[in-house]
Structure formats: C-alpha cells, structure tokens
C-alpha cells in the first residue's frame, strides 16, 4: 500500500499509509510518532517549569497554600495527593455522612479540580462513626488516601482557636467544642479558668468542633495540613491575631 500512497492525494495518504503502520520515515505513521515524542518533550518542559514555579510558591507560603483544602483522612501531603488522585470521586461516593465534596472551578485552583475536600463548618468528618473502617480510604483505588494506623494518627489539619470570638474567652460558659471533640481532654482541654485550648499534637483536624462552635464566624476553624485557613473571615481574624501577638 505504501507504493500506492505516493501517487494518491494527501487526504488519502493519511489513511492508507497509517494503516500500513510500518513506520516509514516521512510517512504519517512516522510523523505521528515524531509528533508524540516532540510533544512529550515540550509538555515535560512546560510541566517542569510550571511545577517548579508551583513548588517555589508553595515553599514561599504564598497564595497557592491558601487554596489547600481539608482533605479526607489518610490523604498524603498536598503535592503527592494531587499527583496520585485519579479524580474519580469514589471516596465521595463512599462517604456515609456526605462529608466529602468534589472540588470544582469554584474552589479556585485548577490543579485541584475533581479532587475531594470538605468544609468543616458545614459537614465535618465524622471519622466513619458506626463503621468498621474509614470508607473513603477503602474506596480509593490509588494511594492518594493511605490506610491509617488508628484514628489518632490522622492529620487532616489542626483546629485553631480564635480567642476574640470564642465565648469561653469572653466570659460566657461554653464547652461546645470539647463536647464535639472525638478526643476530649486530649485534643481540646481546659485551663484553670475553663478556657479551651487546642493540643496540636493530638488534634486530627476532623472539624467536629468547628461545626459545634456557636459563634459566627466559628471561633475554632481548622487549618489544613500544609495550608492556611481557607475562609476569608477566618483569615482576617487570623491576621489580626498575628498583629496583636506582634504587639
């Protein structure tokens, strides 16, 4: 057929010689192979540049860290998670409390489109209470969500106590977060004046305290592991806290 292809028009040559697939130099089959390899290199260069910029931004703690959301339990560190997540949504499907949602364009970062996340203010992670295992981890086909060695080793993030809005710090008797916490007296404990404090080493970041908090905005949001507080209101208060500390 290759003999014919020289005499036929350009249009026909595509299908005829492509069928031969002999990889003759200059034939469309060879051309497509060359295109594949060239674009592999081009894509690798572009991707490498973008990846380097992204890693630099992450390290510098700039905007991209604010886009990190609360991930399901067992999630690997954000860059490794984004690399391994298939965006298939099986964890979202498996979640019995409908905690997990699919990140769409609204969530701001194109690279996390299709990945699972949750909002602690609305539906926190109930740690599959009433089930034998963490169902999202069991459903994940890749190692984006890795099996955890007991609930206490989960690190979704850390609860951050904002003292201006917290009722207990403002003279009101409130122990909502302590009651909601899966590890009371370990992750959240009280000082002598019955004010709560978060023990960072013990907090797993499930967000149950966030939902239970009666104030608006919540006085105890969760900071995602490797990220920053994602809600604007929280971020502002956080900045104010920092300023006050500096003073």
């Amino acid at each position, binding site marked *: 057929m290759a003999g014919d292809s020289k005499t036929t028009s350009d249009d026909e040559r595509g299908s005829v010689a492509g069928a031969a697939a002999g990889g003759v130099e200059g034939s469309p089959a060879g051309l497509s192979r060359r*295109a594949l390899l060239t674009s592999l290199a081009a894509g690798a260069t572009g991707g490498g540049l973008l990846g380097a910029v992204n890693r630099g931004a992450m390290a510098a703690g700039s905007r991209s860290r604010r886009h990190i959301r609360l991930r399901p339990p067992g999630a690997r560190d954000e860059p490794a998670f984004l690399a391994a997540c298939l965006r298939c949504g099986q964890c979202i499907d498996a979640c019995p409390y409908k905690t997990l949602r699919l990140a769409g364009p609204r969530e701001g970062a194109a690279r996390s489109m299709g990945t699972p996340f949750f909002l602690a203010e609305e539906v926190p992670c109930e740690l599959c209470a009433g089930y034998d295992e963490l169902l999202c981890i069991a459903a994940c086909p890749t190692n984006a969500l890795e099996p955890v060695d007991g609930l206490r080793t989960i690190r979704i993030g850390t609860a951050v106590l904002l003292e201006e809005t917290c009722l207990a710090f403002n003279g009101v008797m409130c122990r909502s977060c302590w009651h909601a916490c899966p590890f009371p007296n370990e992750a959240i404990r009280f000082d002598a004046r019955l004010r709560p404090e978060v023990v960072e080493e013990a907090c797993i970041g499930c967000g149950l305290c966030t939902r239970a908090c009666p104030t608006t905005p919540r006085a105890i949001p969760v900071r995602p592991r490797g990220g920053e507080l994602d809600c604007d209101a929280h971020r502002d208060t956080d900045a104010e806290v920092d300023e006050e500390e500096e003073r």
Partner: protein
Amino acid sequence: MAREDSRERRRRFRWWTWGHRSTAIGFLALLFLGGREWFPWFSGSTSAATLFGWIPVTDPLAALEITLASRTFDGTVVLGAGILLLAALLLGPIFCGWVCPLGLIFDLNAGMRRRIARIARFRARSGPRLARWWRMVSLGGVLGFSSAAALPLFQTVSPINFVAWLVVFLPLPALIPEPGIWETLRCGVAEAVAVGGPLLAILGGLLLIELAVPRLWCRAICPLGGLYSLVGRSGRLRVTCRSQSDCLHVAELRRGHDRATVGVVCGRCTAECPMAIDVLSSHVEHGKKTVDDPDCTRCGACIDVCPTRALGFGVFGFRSRQHRSERKRKDPDESQPQRERESRIS
C-alpha cells in the same frame, strides 16, 4: 432512481447508530446511579470506577498519568487499566464510539444537525480531514506535562470528566435544607449553577466549535482517543466490506466508467463517518477487506447508511493479521496485482 434511493435511506432505521447511542446513554445512567447511595453495584466516574464493589476499572490514560505523576506503581490501577486496554487491543477504540459520554453528546448534536439540514435543505458535511498526529501531540504533551509537573493534567481539565462530574455529583452531596421548599430549591439551583456553570460553559464552547469543524475534539485534540487509537490499531473487530461488488460505486467503476468522469457515485459511507475516514476511496475501492484506519471507532455509521448493505461488522482471527503483515513486507512486488486489479476496475 436517485429519489427512490433517498426515500429508502430515510426509512431505514439506523441500528448501529442507535445501538452505540444507547450503550453510551446506559453508561451515563450507570454513572448517575453510581452516585446514589442505594446503588452499590457501581461507583466512580470516567477516570476510574469499581464494578460490583470489587472489579476495578481505570481509564488507561488516567492510569498512565497517575503513574507518571506520582512515580509509583499501583496494582489496582494497573489491573483496572489492563482490563480496558485488553478490550481496546481486541476490539479497537470502541470506548470512543460506544461509551464516551462526550462522544454521545457530539453524536446526538450531529444527528440533530443532520435533521435540521434535511428540513432546511442545506448540506451537513462532515468536517475536513485532519492529520492524525494532532492527537498524538496532545497525548505526548499531556503525558510529558503530567510527569514533569507531578499533576495528572488531563484528568483535571478533561471535558469527558466534566460530563461525568455533572452527572454524578451535581445532585449535590450536601444540599443544606433552607426553611421552605422554594428557598431550598432556589439555593439548590444557585449552588448547581455556581458549581456546574463553568463546566457547562466549557462543554457549550465545545459544541459551538462543532458548528465550524465537526468532531474537532475527537479527531484532533482528545489525548484519550489518541491513546485508544494507538492501542486499538490492530483491533480484531472491524467494519468489513463483505463483497466489493455490492458497492454501488465499485459496481459503477466495474461497468467501465472512469472515476475521473463519473466521480464518486455514492460515497455515503465516507460522508457519514464522524471521524472523517475515507471509507470508500481508501478502503472499499482499494479492495481492502476491512476498514483498518486506526481512527475508526466502530460506531457503524457507514454500515447504517450503505444503501446496498455492502458493509458490515466482522471479527478477524490473529492469523489473518499475519497474512496481512506478510503481504506488507513484500509490498513492492505485491502492489503490482493490486494495481492491475484497479486498472481492471477503472
């Protein structure tokens, strides 16, 4: 005669077309059901899914991207991709023709266009033939990017995934019930627009492109289609020309008419092909038994429109492939009888 032909054509039910449409609609329904909690037999979307709670199925391109991006080898993913790759190896890129939800949308759109064209009496042409290596460029680019940026690029921006996400996840996982049904509905719709609006806009943009160049996405951009066409190159299920003499065009040529003066007599198969494969001139007229173009998605559009039913589906054993490759190797000598046959025809 010509008018009779057209009437006969219109009356004929497009079995294969509706066949592959219904399997794709079935897949969409399965995706939707998979998102419901009371349906445990399917879970997932287009990039990966689990059947009956234990059979993993993974999109081979997604599996490749994940493997390159995370630099780890995952048994479940490889197994799941292997199932689909084996199917493509045996049957060709049937995913594109029979399963792909985006392909379904394009196909329904093309059908609508054909119908409008018939009523408004303009010619709905299939698009220009585009070079095959375009898809290879995007496949290579996606794989290179995924590996270097440690991010499965196509899985985050794939319109195929968009369709699946819209179907599976838009009936939102956590609709907050507001006081009053109308308020709940209003919030639900607002939420749906906020979440799915941009995805819908991108899909709408692709449909607008369809007006100018039909199937531009499938033929020139889709890296998944590129991968399937690479793998399915030697697929055993093919459109076959059962008997060349049944073809109106070939019969006309055999009657002693010159192609230069007669032109293409029928050519419906070429005109209908969504992938713009020249079924008639490059395959049937050449005396090839099968349509061996790697772009062929086995959608059966050409079979449906062939007025004399000269085309059909056929399955070929691996022996016939050996014969073909032997013939290929001895090409310069073997092409002689081919040319003789052609000169006899014309």
